[in-house]
């Protein structure tokens, strides 16, 4: 049975800004132990103050089939990082993530596609990644071609596409294969009016097939519509967890004046 279990999840990024990423600093740090008066000793002291950004600081939740979880929070609250941690892109620094079921990720709008290659070639590569047979890949190709209405552009490099065209292609491709556990970032809800209506139908379809969905968004109306549960993240912690209406009204409530 598909499930998502997250226990005390911690993710922190070492911040290698500027020089601290260079080998000189690193060697300087190890050499400083040998000679305290050398010029590198000074460098090393700087380097020791390595800044670590704690993006997630102990997140817990469990999802069962039928759950549609929305992640809400300001910029830098950790929504995207949490999605990536669920996808196994960032392995936990502390805690544990356990996912049962086939996993589908719609995180990055470029979907890891190569801009130099044509739409068709990118679809085939995606098919190889997912281990699809030739026939299955061809089916996906037809499906995406029909949805994205790219016509002869399918054989042109993606870098020649308008941004609308590349979103249509990415969206069509990402929604062609329905997983059991679906992770989505908010870019999916963007797009122009005509596309939105068309996308909506397709999205409803794939969300309906997925047994668990985790969606990150800034947009409360999207949450109300799609989610059965909302997690409000702030500074890497869960600030509130509950029914969409309860959490959203708290989230949207005017901040008390200081």
């Amino acid at each position: 049975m598909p499930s998502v279990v997250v226990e005390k999840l911690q993710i922190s990024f070492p911040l290698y800004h500027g020089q601290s990423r260079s080998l000189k600093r690193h060697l300087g740090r190890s050499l400083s132990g040998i000679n305290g008066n050398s010029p590198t000793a000074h460098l090393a002291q700087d380097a020791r103050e390595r800044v670590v950004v704690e993006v997630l600081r102990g997140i817990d939740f469990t999802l069962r089939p039928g759950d549609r979880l929305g992640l809400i929070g300001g910029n830098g609250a950790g929504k995207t990082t949490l999605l990536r941690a669920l996808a196994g892109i960032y392995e936990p620094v502390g805690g544990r993530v356990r996912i049962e079921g086939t996993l589908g990720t719609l995180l990055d709008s470029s979907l890891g596609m190569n801009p130099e290659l044509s739409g068709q070639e990118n679809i085939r590569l995606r098919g190889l990644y997912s281990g699809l047979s030739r026939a299955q890949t061809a089916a996906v190709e037809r499906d995406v071609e029909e949805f994205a209405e790219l016509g002869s552009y399918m054989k042109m490099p993606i870098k020649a596409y308008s941004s609308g065209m590349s979103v249509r292609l990415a969206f069509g491709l990402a929604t062609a294969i329905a997983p059991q556990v679906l992770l989505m970032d908010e870019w999916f809800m963007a797009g122009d009016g005509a596309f939105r209506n068309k996308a909506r139908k397709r999205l409803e379809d794939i969300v309906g097939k997925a047994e668990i969905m985790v969606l990150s968004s800034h947009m409360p109306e999207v949450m109300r519509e799609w989610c059965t549960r909302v997690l409000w993240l702030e500074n890497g912690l869960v600030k509130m967890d509950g029914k969409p209406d309860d959490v959203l009204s708290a989230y949207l409530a005017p901040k008390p004046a200081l």
Partner: protein
Amino acid sequence: MADNLSHSPVLEFAPQRGIGRVTAAWADLRAGLKLFPLAFALGWLDIKMRYRGSMLGPFWLTLSTAVMVAALGVIYSKLFHMDLPRYLPFLSLSIVLWGFISTIAIDAATVFTQSASQFHSMRTPASLPVLRVIVRNVLTLLHNAVVIVAVFAIFHVWPHQSWSLLVSLPLWIADSFAGVLLIGMLGARFRDIPPIIVSVLQVFFFVTPVIWKPDLIYLGRQYLLLDPFYPILEIVRAPLLGGSVRPSIWFAAITQAFVLWGIAAVFFCRMRARITYWI
């Protein structure tokens, strides 16, 4: 409802220590090998893309190598006072093999940083881009091998002990894999690795008997065994040119391979999970 509920895959992510790291690294390798068709397609597309729109396509590789070998061959045979029929087969083989080594080492330094968008959009085995670099370079090598075959045919050079290729070629692939993985991880963590690799390779191009024959020097020839590139080069080059390889060279090549694999394995177990944090 999906019918594969009984055997749906389970993914578990947690910080690992000790043996857990080894099994995770092993799982990564297996996942990468399973995606070999993808790695192959990516590597082939890399080459195709570079020459998209050009008339000769990937055969530019062959042509530019041919020009290089011809030019260097004439100049150096004069400089080293060697006769062309003996020197040119040696040079063409050396240049092509060295070209493989140096390009793969330079590509390795950016192997992970260049696939950042792939790594950030879905879980990707670290071994996948490594295989892609190897495929790309092996295909380039095959294009260049045409020049070697042509030169050998012109000067009537016949390989000797060609069975040894059955050992030396897999050794090359395994060394490439370990080397790309190792340099790639260091390159993801430290951004000074790419220029360091370039300058180290430049030095070794002259130190290693690539364009000069090892029998040109008498003093200190045994130190050549410590050169990280000479033994591995010689075990392929000498038999193809119709000579034989001394056992000490085989021993050095195999020892170096084990050292390289060992270091790469230790680093990979320790750093695998951090790669996406670095790029």
